[in-house]
């Protein structure tokens, strides 16, 4: 199956997994940083929301690494697009377009709603695929196993409902 991005062929899963592992280990070995991306959402919120939750030491002390890392993610996506056929803004959403077929406004509303679940859910769970799924599982942390099983199961149920029942 080609990627939505320029119909490119994806790299082998073993290469992708190994690359993720190398970056995760590099962050730990170079700078004693625990991989975790969703906490970066807090870093951004902490600039505008003056509530105690965003004034935690854990947030303030990590801004200096999470913000450049997140900027790197955006740049990485940009470079990948440029190298793979050029940067061109797109609304292409693959099977969503074929099966559900919402227009631009509907797509934005759907994405915003999904984003709300992501933002609230990852903060309540204390992490996402990176902090719980990759780092937490690799470090044999029980809360990460519980969270990972929870979000994998909920993702399966949601996608099955959306693509096999509702649409």
């Amino acid at each position: 199956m080609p990627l939505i991005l320029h119909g490119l062929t994806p790299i082998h899963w073993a290469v992708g997994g190994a690359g993720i592992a190398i970056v995760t280990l590099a962050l730990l070995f170079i700078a004693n940083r625990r991989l975790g991306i969703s906490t970066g959402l807090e870093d951004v919120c902490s600039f505008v929301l003056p509530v105690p939750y965003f004034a935690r030491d854990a947030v303030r002390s990590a801004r200096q690494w999470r913000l450049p890392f997140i900027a790197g993610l955006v740049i990485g996506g940009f470079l990948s697009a440029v190298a793979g056929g050029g940067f061109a803004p797109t609304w292409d959403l693959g099977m969503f377009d074929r099966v559900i077929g919402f227009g631009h406004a509907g797509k934005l509303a759907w994405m915003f709603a999904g984003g709300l679940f992501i933002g609230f859910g990852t903060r309540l769970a204390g992490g996402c695929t990176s902090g719980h799924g990759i780092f937490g599982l690799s470090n044999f942390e029980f809360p990460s196993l519980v969270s990972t099983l929870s979000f994998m199961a909920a993702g399966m149920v949601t996608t099955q409902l959306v693509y096999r029942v509702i649409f």
Partner: protein
Amino acid sequence: MALVYLTCGVIFGVILSRSGAADYNYIQAMFLFTSFQLYGIIGTAVVITAPGIWLIKRYGRTVLGKPIAIELKPQHRGNVAGGVLFGIGWSMCGMCPGPIFVNIGEGKVYAIAALAGALAGAGLFGAIYTRVQGLFRLPRLVVGTGDG
């Protein structure tokens, strides 16, 4: 050091972009059990990262000589409840938090809406933290000046 983190982010972003981890179709195919790709990626990452973390902890220091001290994530009822909510969002957007940023970089316009939602959701959680703290047995907030 900011440059090191930026570089790590760029490499991570390119990998997510080109492996399918930041691709809507591949996320749905994972949850529909029609593609092994994402299971292979996450599985391989954990299988390599686990012994790596063990070795680094055994060595005990970073390459710059600072002590390794991994902050553990707390256990509470939010692990399940938050996990379930996040899973719904991951399925809806076809992106988890990292890929949201990658997709924005790739030029996927709708990913900006996903980011806006994620920031609003995280902001909402922060705003009502003290009110849901008891319900989910969340840890007490340690508020300070930090070093950031």
